């Protein structure tokens, strides 16, 4: 009886297994397996985070931009390794006299991944699509577009205003003319932003690209952005395996430029930094982004190539004048600057190649004033200034973020700790307020402005001083507690500089803004610019580290 029951159970289990096996068939593609005709192999890159979607206009972070850059082209692009412009889909671009009209001469014979032609009509279709984004959900997602073009045809939110974009005309297939409502210093650099990549009009329509929806407390993206990105770039979208967190792109054999040698480009999402390092050491990935500065030396010694990007960011010690009247006194802010030992901070905590910032711009941006001297480390002078201002017993609430590393701030806790010690030595009492980056820090600092001091920074999007200075100090913000009346001079000076369109005059105006910021206003203290890096195996060549983290993998060769 007992054995009979056992037997029947075994039979049942076997039957179940057979049935399951019968309905499960291998879906392996045969082409893989290093197939016979394969040429360049597969390049696997470890990404720190998952992409949000694949429609560049809705992209806001580096992890989302990275795959987009490989699949799409922009009208103009940045010369590898620099922030300077070079031709991409447009071979020439010329403004009119007052910089309100840009004429682009387009490359001929370029096709989108779906086989449709890239031409002036397609350019206009993209520009018109952006300005006509229909609902609030889509408009809030198009962050870079609204930064550059300031508004939509029909603004659905209060944060956007009059659109800078006016219209686009296509007099012939290879000429597109973009008309603007006003000149802006951001152009033509901003035309190279990955967000302004050219998508196939046919695919945009077919896959309902504008249909971003708000669903509960989140946004859902249309099929175009999740599964059917269609650009002109060197790689085509193949799949995004959301279980394994792997994005697979395949070589575009119809690419208009030099075709990539590698067959497949894979982005494997590995959020943990130590895990990325170990995957590289174990040989399961070919490279990864943002190795911790602490590991550069080890990785180099292990025979990996650490590719250091030119610096293009600023870390600053923010000062909020609103809650602590003492900080409204310029002398107190200067004292804080003299108290901070930025030389040793940069040397001991930031990677090789990091520099002390003398102003709120990295050196390569037009508008950088070379004659500004870094405020020296001088604790005695700091104490004297504090005494003179009558604030020798200053107490400040110093906010700093946890659970985050940014390219400009590889280890916020260490940076904070070093600064805290500096301030303590000139008699300033520091209340440490750590908050998780997403768990309150940004809200406290940028939105509610409850801090006295804080750490924040910025990585430039393109070569334009306004992209830094205007972003920081262009208007009253809770972050710095600048007041509309008291600091009107600063706001006017910046907005005057920004609306100067002639490149040389634009740069000169910003140089003056920088000088005044450091001497007259000092609303914050620029600390450093640090180079983020990427690391690849020794048999990989063809990656040029970009200051804009705009690396393209089309020239990757696996040796």
């Amino acid at each position, binding site marked *: 009886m007992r054995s009979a029951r056992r037997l029947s159970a075994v039979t049942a289990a076997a039957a179940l297994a057979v049935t399951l096996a019968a309905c499960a068939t291998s879906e392996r593609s045969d082409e893989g397996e290093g197939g016979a005709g394969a040429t360049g192999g597969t390049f696997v890159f470890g990404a720190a985070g998952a992409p949000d979607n694949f429609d560049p206009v809705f992209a806001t972070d580096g992890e989302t931009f990275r795959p987009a850059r490989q699949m799409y082209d922009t009208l103009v692009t940045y010369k590898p390794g620099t922030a300077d412009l070079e031709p991409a889909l447009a071979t020439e671009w010329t403004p009119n006299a007052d910089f309100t009209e840009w004429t682009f001469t387009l490359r001929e014979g370029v096709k989108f991944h779906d086989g449709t032609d890239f031409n002036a009509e397609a350019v206009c279709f993209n520009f018109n699509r952006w300005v006509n984004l229909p609902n609030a959900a889509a408009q809030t997602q198009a962050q870079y577009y609204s930064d550059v073009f300031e508004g939509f045809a029909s603004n659905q939110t209060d944060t956007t205003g009059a659109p800078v974009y006016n219209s686009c005309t296509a007099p012939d297939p290879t000429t597109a003319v973009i008309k603007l409502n006003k000149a802006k210093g951001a152009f033509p650099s901003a035309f190279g932003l990955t967000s302004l990549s050219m998508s196939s009009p046919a695919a945009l329509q077919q896959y309902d690209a504008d249909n971003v929806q708000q669903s509960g407390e989140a946004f859902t993206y249309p099929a175009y952005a999740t599964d059917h990105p269609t650009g002109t770039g060197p790689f085509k979208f193949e799949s995004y395996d959301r279980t394994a967190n792997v994005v697979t792109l395949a070589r575009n054999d119809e690419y208009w430029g030099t075709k990539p040698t590698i067959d497949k480009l894979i982005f494997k999402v590995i959020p943990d*930094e*130590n895990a990325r*390092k170990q995957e590289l050491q174990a040989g399961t990935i070919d490279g990864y982004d943002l190795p*911790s*500065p*602490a*590991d*550069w*030396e*080890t990785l180099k010694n292990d025979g990996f190539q650490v590719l250091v990007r030119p610096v293009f960011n600023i870390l600053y010690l923010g000062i909020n004048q609103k809650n602590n009247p003492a900080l409204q006194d310029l002398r107190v802010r200067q004292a804080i600057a003299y108290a901070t030992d930025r030389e*040793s901070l940069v*040397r*001991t*905590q*930031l*990677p*090789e190649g990091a520099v002390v910032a003398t102003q709120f711009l990295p050196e390569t941006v037009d508008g950088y004033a070379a004659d500004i001297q870094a405020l020296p480390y001088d604790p005695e002078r700091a104490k004297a200034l504090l005494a003179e201002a009558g604030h020798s017993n200053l107490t400040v609430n110093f906010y700093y973020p*946890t*659970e985050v590393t940014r390219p400009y701030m*590889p*280890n916020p*806790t*260490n940076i*904070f*700790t*070093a600064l*805290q*010690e500096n301030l303590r030595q000139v008699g300033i009492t520091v209340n*440490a*307020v*750590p*908050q*998780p980056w997403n*768990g*309150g820090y940004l809200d406290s600092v940028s939105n509610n402005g409850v801090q006295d001091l804080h750490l924040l920074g910025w990585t430039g999007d393109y070569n334009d001083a306004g992209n830094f200075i205007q972003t920081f100090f262009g208007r009253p913000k809770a972050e710095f507690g600048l007041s509309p009346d008291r600091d009107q001079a600063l706001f006017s000076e910046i907005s005057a500089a920004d609306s100067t369109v002639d490149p040389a005059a634009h740069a000169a105006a910003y140089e003056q803004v920088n000088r005044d910021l450091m001497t007259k206003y000092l609303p914050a203290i620029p600390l450093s610019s640090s180079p983020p890096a990427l690391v690849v195996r020794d048999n990989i060549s063809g990656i040029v580290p970009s200051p804009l983290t705009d690396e393209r993998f089309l020239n990757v060769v696996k040796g």
Partner: protein
Amino acid sequence: MTTTWAQRRKERIDDLAGGRSLTSEAMRRLRRDPVAIVGAVIVGLFVVIAVFAPLLAPHGAAESFPELQADLRPGNIPGAQEGFPLGGDQLGRDFLSRMILASQQTLLVGVLATLIGLAIGIVIGTLAGAFGGWIDTVLMRVTDVLLAIPSLLLAISVAALAASPSQTTVIIAVAIVGVPIFARLLRGSMLSQRNSDHVVAATALGVKRPAVVLRHMLPNAIGPVIVQATLTLATAILDAAALSFLGLGDADPGRAEWGLMLAQAQTYLDVRPALAFYPAFAIIVVALGFTLLGESLREALDPKGRR
């Protein structure tokens, strides 16, 4: 009728006498148990170091030194040199001093969390065990739910629900984990006291209910709970370290705490593994010490004695 002074004194003596015989029996067993001795030595050393940490540590926890900063780079943390037997940490602070001072913070977090858990557990267990009825039912339902949630998950949830990570949230999160265990244990041993002779006698003599509970039942029932507290200290230290690792721990970098030091050293594992190994080793040894002591205490106090 109120109890007279003479009566009260008699009761106290009775309690003490009973307590002493039990304790001395346990002590006798403990002294012969090598496990208990090892545990006691580890715990004893740890407590001594922790209590006198400010005297033992050559430097402050937040102080940084030019000697240690001279060659400090993100990829190079100087090792031992004159005056700094364990070298510096990632900010040029004296690693030895931080290790020593951290013992105090670790003990503080462990002890406070255990004590808070113990206090709440005792209140709940006493109420449930002494009164029974619906109070018992409701309280035990709640502790059942808490017990069913795995301890670390519970600690993570509590810590994640706090506004911002701090030492206080860690202590509270770890304390809550201990509450249901203490409450259950105490209730069980209170229940067994309810029908014991001395409790029945006290009740018959007309001693008021709260007095019976607090003076007769609780002191006799609390033994196993205290043993459990020793064991909980070990888990408390480990849970606090895990919270730090997940970024839910105390985030004040000036303060030295082993869990936090271990979490921060993750970045420097290839550069200077000692920064991670020493705190990890310290956590393991101390947790081991409390476990050994607790286990042997439990065996010593177990009347059946597993010989």
